[in-house]
């Protein structure tokens, strides 16, 4: 009965087709709009009739995203119940009728619909022909239009070693009629595992039969390169001598990624972009979706044993952001390779992309380079602030995505904790900096040397503003906003970094900027303003009005060579910071005591002597401009005594001729380790 009815409808339909543009046999294109009113009405009616006769069937209906009130439908053509590949129509419909019809319609299809092969036999034949495995549980019987006419075929998919292939197999002879890759050039999502074996989704694109770590789904293009240990080429690219090529982009054959270094770098860079957008509404590192090039595998892991210390320090045990790298001078980030377990005291160092906070740390340097700068001179408080903000937003990114904890893939206040096995070897603690050998108070600063060292004074303030607590050194108590409101403190610091701070910012200026940001965002007297103010007080950062001096606390034994072969000796750092006034040093003095507190000796000198000694963070001069620092690394020995103490004092004149005297606390020199 149904056959009779269908035949009847089909004959009606063919009769109507006889008077139309698709009356001839074979495929005919349809391209009709309201420009041709009469033709539109005729075609619209014919499409309706074909829908009723089920020669056209709705595959999809969608609301129009761009034109409100309209929708469109996609219709597939069927021949005696079998879908015709490539026979389909789109129809755009407005409330007052059809707007357009586009498609290809086949008429007088002259093939039967009874296959000689069974679906199971067809699947096996497809897999056999392509030396692969069938994909999916089913094959579809279709009518396929080729240049030599219509074929009854099975359509299925086969996975091969390199790709997914669509196959059309003759349903009568079992011959492959057509095959083509299923890969497209759109943004794709692949899967991969990170350094800790965790499953990740990776945003890629397909090209030339492979998948590239080139994110097309985010507003900013994030491209991860695999330099395959070619350090010469990497340096040429970073230096802008040659642009990176498509062949440099990390790739994978089947979009199931096995290179965990690439997976982590690419995925975490994307997550960082998302963090900036979701938390701050910011479009990438420059706020305008600047491309983000990420470089991995700068060196080969197996080459570490023959590498120079400079190469190990830069490309194995390091990650870095370069604000002016590549030919467009807009910057890049590079993640070191890590070292194997057998390289140094049984410690395995993971690739530097293995830790979300480290990836976010490096990318925050790019944000800083595009906002406050803070990199005019790394051996300054601005340099320390640069590292502090990177640690802050590295940790904040981790808290945004990961549950709090101490295991890998959890968030905590220890920056870089997951880089090593055992964990925490190369790390900085924001919650207890002393624990990782870093200062937690402004009096412990050591300007002029590693800028990471001083960063914990600032990042500890960030921690206290969130979590609160009593400061270990100052014993001052901070009432934090609580971890549930961590976003407030993150926004305050981010606003300070990206809106308020200048490139030569000091800790004191950062104090002022963050307090202002808290007022801007949450109002004067808000919990955020209170927490931040208390936190800066606790870490000893005050408005920089008066001059201060700091001595590196509890120095460990230094190298004998520094002190003319006397053992033990201590390497020490002294930082003299001017306040509101310009200063000229007139005299300085160091006093040295044995373990019983008896003075052993003293040294020092006049302003010229000061200038000769204090050149670690600026020009060698007896003048210290307001808001700047003079720094020295000195070597101390106690004439062979293994423990004792030392203290330094300074005299200076300010611009008004007033004498200022500063003395450091007496610092214990511990027995050498």
């Amino acid at each position, binding site marked *: *009965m*149904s056959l009779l009815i269908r035949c009847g409808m089909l004959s009606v339909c063919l009769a109507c087709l006889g008077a139309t543009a698709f009356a001839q046999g074979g495929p005919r294109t349809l391209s009709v709009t309201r420009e041709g009113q009469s033709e539109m009405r005729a075609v619209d009616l014919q499409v309706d009739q074909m829908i009723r006769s089920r020669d056209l069937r709705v595959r999809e209906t969608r609301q129009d995203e761009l034109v409100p009130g309209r929708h469109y439908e996609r219709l597939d053509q069927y021949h005696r119940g079998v879908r015709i590949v490539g026979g389909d129509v789109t129809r755009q419909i407005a409330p007052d009728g059809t707007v357009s019809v586009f498609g290809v319609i086949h008429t007088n299809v002259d093939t039967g619909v009874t296959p000689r092969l069974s679906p199971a036999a067809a699947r096996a034949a497809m897999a056999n022909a392509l030396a692969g495995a069938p994909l999916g549980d089913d094959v579809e019987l279709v009518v396929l239009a080729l240049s030599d006419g219509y074929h009854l075929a099975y359509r299925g998919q086969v996975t091969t070693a390199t790709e997914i292939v669509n196959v059309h197999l003759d349903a009568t002879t079992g011959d492959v009629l057509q095959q083509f890759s299923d890969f497209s050039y759109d943004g794709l999502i692949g899967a991969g595992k990170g350094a800790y074996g965790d499953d990740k*989704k990776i945003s890629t694109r397909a090209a030339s039969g492979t998948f590239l770590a080139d994110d097309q789904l985010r507003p900013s293009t994030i491209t991860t390169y695999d330099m395959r240990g070619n350090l010469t080429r990497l340096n040429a690219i970073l230096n802008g001598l040659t642009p990176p090529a498509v062949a440099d982009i990390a790739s994978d054959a089947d979009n199931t990624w096995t290179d965990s270094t690439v997976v982590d770098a690419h995925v975490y860079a994307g997550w960082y972009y998302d963090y900036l957008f979701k938390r701050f509404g910011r479009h990438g590192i420059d706020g305008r979706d600047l491309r983000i090039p990420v470089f991995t595998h700068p060196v080969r892991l197996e080459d570490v044993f023959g590498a120079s210390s400079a190469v190990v320090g830069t490309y194995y045990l390091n990650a870095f952001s370069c604000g002016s790298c590549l030919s467009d001078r807009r910057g890049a980030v590079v993640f070191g390779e890590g070292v194997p377990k057998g390289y140094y005291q049984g410690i395995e160092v993971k690739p530097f992309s293995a830790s979300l906070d480290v990836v976010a740390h490096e990318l925050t340097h790019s944000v800083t380079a595009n906002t406050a700068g803070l990199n005019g001179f790394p051996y300054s408080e601005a340099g320390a602030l640069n590292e502090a903000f990177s640690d802050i937003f590295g940790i904040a990114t981790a808290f945004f995505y990961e549950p709090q904890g101490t295991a890998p893939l959890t968030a905590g206040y220890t920056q870089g904790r997951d880089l090593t096995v055992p964990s925490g070897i190369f790390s900085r603690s924001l919650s207890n900096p002393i624990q990782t050998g870093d200062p937690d108070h402004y009096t412990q600063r050591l300007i002029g040397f590693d800028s990471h060292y001083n960063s914990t004074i600032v990042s500890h303030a960030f921690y206290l503003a969130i979590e609160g607590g009593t400061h270990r050194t100052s014993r001052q108590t901070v009432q934090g906003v609580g971890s549930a409101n961590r976003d407030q403190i993150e926004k305050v610091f981010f606003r300070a970094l990206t809106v308020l701070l200048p490139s030569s910012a000091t800790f004191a200026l950062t104090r002022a900027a963050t307090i202002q940001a808290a007022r801007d965002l949450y109002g004067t007297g808000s919990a955020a303003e209170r927490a931040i103010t208390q936190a800066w007080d606790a870490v000893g950062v005050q408005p920089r009005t008066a001059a201060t001096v700091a001595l590196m606390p509890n120095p460990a034994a230094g190298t004998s060579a520094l002190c003319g072969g006397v053992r033990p000796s201590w390497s020490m750092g002294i930082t003299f910071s001017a306040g509101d006034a310009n200063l000229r040093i007139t005299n300085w003095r160091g006093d040295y005591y044995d373990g019983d507190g008896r003075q052993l000796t003293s040294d020092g000198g006049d302003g010229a002597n000061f200038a000769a000694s204090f050149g670690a963070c600026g020009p060698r001069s007896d003048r210290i401009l307001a808001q700047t620092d003079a720094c020295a690394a000195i070597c101390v020995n106690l004439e062979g005594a293994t423990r004792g103490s030392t203290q330094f004092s300074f005299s200076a004149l300010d611009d008004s001729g007033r004498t200022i005297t500063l003395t450091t606390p007496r610092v214990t020199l511990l027995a050498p380790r």
Partner: protein
Amino acid sequence: MRRVLLGACLVLAAAPAAAQPVRWTDRGYVIVDGAARITSASFAGVARPITFVEPAEVDTSYRVRQAPALDVAAGGRVWRNLAVGADVSFFTRGTTAAVDAKVPHPFVFGRPRSVSGAASGLDHTETTLNIQARWVMPPTRTRRWQIDLFGGPSLFVVGQDVVRDVTITEIYPYDSATFAGATLDHRSRTHAGFHVGTDVTRLVARRVALGVSVSASHARVDLATADGGSVSLNAGGVQVGLALRFIIPRKVPAARPPIRRRP
């Protein structure tokens, strides 16, 4: 279904109480029945298409509403009032479906976005071959009225557009999405079932009768989906209609030629 059986019982009860049933003597019949399916059917399915390397979950509730149906039956008398025949029934209806889906996030595992919407224009077809035993009861000797009871096994060929996936609109950062449409697969399956029913017709011409019919049919059909799942639906239902019966009369033996005597 219960209503149909009840109707059949009432018809039986209404039959003449005479002890001797009236014999049905026709050779056979052809019935064309323009009917209406008066019951609607609801069923549900779940699809789990892989989306962003993670399975999505697409829950779809389908509803097949009332619609016209067409039956053509033919058969012949095999013993007393019993006839055996076949009936072909065709029913088609555009269906609607409510879709609730959880679509994976493109960047992270385990953070699906919920979307809901409606899909319309889904085809539902049922072509049924009914093998029929028919008990014919003319209630009076005039045979002007005729009551039939019938039933038997059925073979259903059910076609249904099933929702295979959803299309969504989403913009960065893709934390939410809105339903834009449904992607359909046409699935069909042949399955056995049964049918019962009754006709009441009245002669309007010498070999044509007109009347009403009530019937019910049923089969439970599982349609396999592309991702290995299935959609189970109840095919058939209750339909009432106008029956047009064409009577095939019994053969009347040819009259013998008169015997001529020799003069």
